[in-house]
């Protein structure tokens, strides 16, 4: 009898500790997830209580819909456009700053600072920099004798502006990860390579790069996932325009769900976003297992 009540109180204790997290987790993560899958098979419009079950129609329609295909394409262009410069610049700064020297902390703080600030507010500042008539970018171009560029009004350049803003915000964060990875490389390896007379370049290619490859890979994936979920800078700078040239999947979702109230197609779009993130996460975990050098 005593044992039984002990076991019961043990269970109660566990429950008491996990419930505060599990209740909101179920209410706002897990149940909505299932619900979203269900909505994606319907043609619900949010306003009317009636809806009908349309099966896979939302998904089929997606692949015939040029909006969706463009958004998918834009998402990948944006993700790659953000990830490559972010990782390359982040690594470059980390290589210069991973050793402590006078002022290194200050440089780190300065490069990291954009990450702290609200994306909405800094995007507004950037929208002024790239303003066509009085923006800084065009004023400088004018000084150099170039024609002004309608940065945010032209389909060719709008995406570039959003990419610049995103890279600017993400680079410091990426740098910090590289710094901690670089500091974990044993000093003895470099000393050994000095004895062998390796050039700095060989040292970088043969020692540094392989040893930080798991971090690099992780940073590529995480930056990509963040890029796929970027929203704030798009809404301030371009609202998906001009004529859909910066409409990513997440922005398309937002327009479908909260501007057009097409909940079915919107839910389907969100599940495609999940599919892409899910695949990226799995690749990351798998590669992480195989590439553990550290």
């Amino acid at each position, binding site marked *: 009898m005593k044992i039984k009540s002990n076991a019961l109180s043990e269970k109660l204790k566990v429950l008491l*500790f996990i419930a505060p997290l599990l209740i909101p987790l179920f209410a*706002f993560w897990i149940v909505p997830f299932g619900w979203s899958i269900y909505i994606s098979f319907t043609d619900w419009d949010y306003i009317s209580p009636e809806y009908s079950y349309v099966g896979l129609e939302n998904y089929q329609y997606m692949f015939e819909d040029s909006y969706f295909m463009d958004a998918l394409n834009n998402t990948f262009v944006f993700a790659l456009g953000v990830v490559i410069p972010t990782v390359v610049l982040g690594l470059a700064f980390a290589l210069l700053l991973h050793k402590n020297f006078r002022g290194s902390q200050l440089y780190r703080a300065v490069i990291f600072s954009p990450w702290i600030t609200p994306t909405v507010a800094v995007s*507004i*500042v950037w929208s002024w920099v790239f303003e066509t008539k009085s923006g800084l970018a065009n004023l400088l171009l004018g000084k150099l004798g170039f024609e002004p560029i309608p940065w945010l009004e032209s389909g060719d350049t709008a995406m570039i502006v959003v990419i610049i803003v995103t890279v600017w915000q993400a680079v410091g964060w990426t740098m910090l990860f590289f710094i901690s990875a670089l500091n974990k490389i044993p000093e003895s390896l470099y000393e050994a390579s000095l004895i062998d007379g390796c050039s700095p370049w060989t040292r970088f290619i043969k020692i540094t790069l392989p040893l930080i490859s798991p971090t690099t890979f992780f940073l590529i994936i995480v930056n990509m996932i963040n890029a796929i979920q970027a929203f*704030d800078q798009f809404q301030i700078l371009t609202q998906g325009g001009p004529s859909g040239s910066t409409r990513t999947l997440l922005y398309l979702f937002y327009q479908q769900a909260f501007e057009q109230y097409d*909940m079915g197609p919107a839910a389907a779009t969100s599940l495609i976003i999940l599919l892409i993130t899910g695949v990226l*996460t799995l690749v990351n975990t798998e590669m992480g297992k195989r590439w553990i050098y550290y």
Partner: protein
Amino acid sequence: MTTRSINLPLANDQTGKHTKTIAVQVSTVNIPAKAVLKPTGLALLKHGFLTISGLIMVFPFVWMLSGSMKSNDEIFSNPLNILPEQFRWETFVETFNSAPFGLYIMNSFTVALFTTLIVMINSAMFAYAITQFKFKSQTALYFVVMACYMLPGAVTYIPSYITLANMGLLDSHTGLIISNAASVFGVFYLRQVFLKVHPSLIEAARIDGAGEVKILWAIVLPQCKAALATLFLITFITNYNSYMWPSLLITSQDLNLIATGIRQFFIAEGNYGLNWSQIMAASTIAVLPLLILFIICQKTILSGIADNGVKE
């Protein structure tokens, strides 16, 4: 020769044995002094490059401050002057008067603070249960929580919105706080930290008859102060800056968070592309509290992220 000395520790994973042998070899050989001494020219080049990069990184902030101090006429007549002809502090007063930015900042601050406190409490309790209790489905539970990590916000927005509508919590800070109350990152982060707490300490406390809540509060948490500070700052900053979800939930003007408030001010009639001076003042009002927070807590934030592999 070269490949051997490089590949050894790679192939041997984390045993560390071979790295040690190399270190011994090194200590017996004299490294040529030339290779160790850093040429000052290179150091100058490095500082030059870093200074220029640093200036580019902070330039938007400088540009923003400069713009907020100029009059609108000056912005268009002398656009490239970084130092305004005269510092117009009154722009800030005008901006504060044209929209309730003080209130927006208070709202953001309150919501972020309460969300962060709840996240800290429930993540700590959950992480404690996962690391210190023994029960069936422990691992399964942890995996369920971690699987939520890859769930993009977009997937849960529509149903969460409906749930909050059913609860009558749309357009309220309570709704915003409870819908952000579960943080997968918090669990992931604290679990890692709690695993490092020595089990004998907890055993000893249990034998002494301390309750679990007391052990968590008096033994585990005090040992993880640095990590708790990092988690607090990161959760707070993320919530303070968040925009998409709050902008969907909150519709009343006086409940707006700063990010939503500043966007409305930006797109409001007559402001867009005309009153850059006030728009920059508003951006400054939004950005400055966080920059100050960052300057104060710089060490915790930078080292916390770098050392503990913090995501987001």
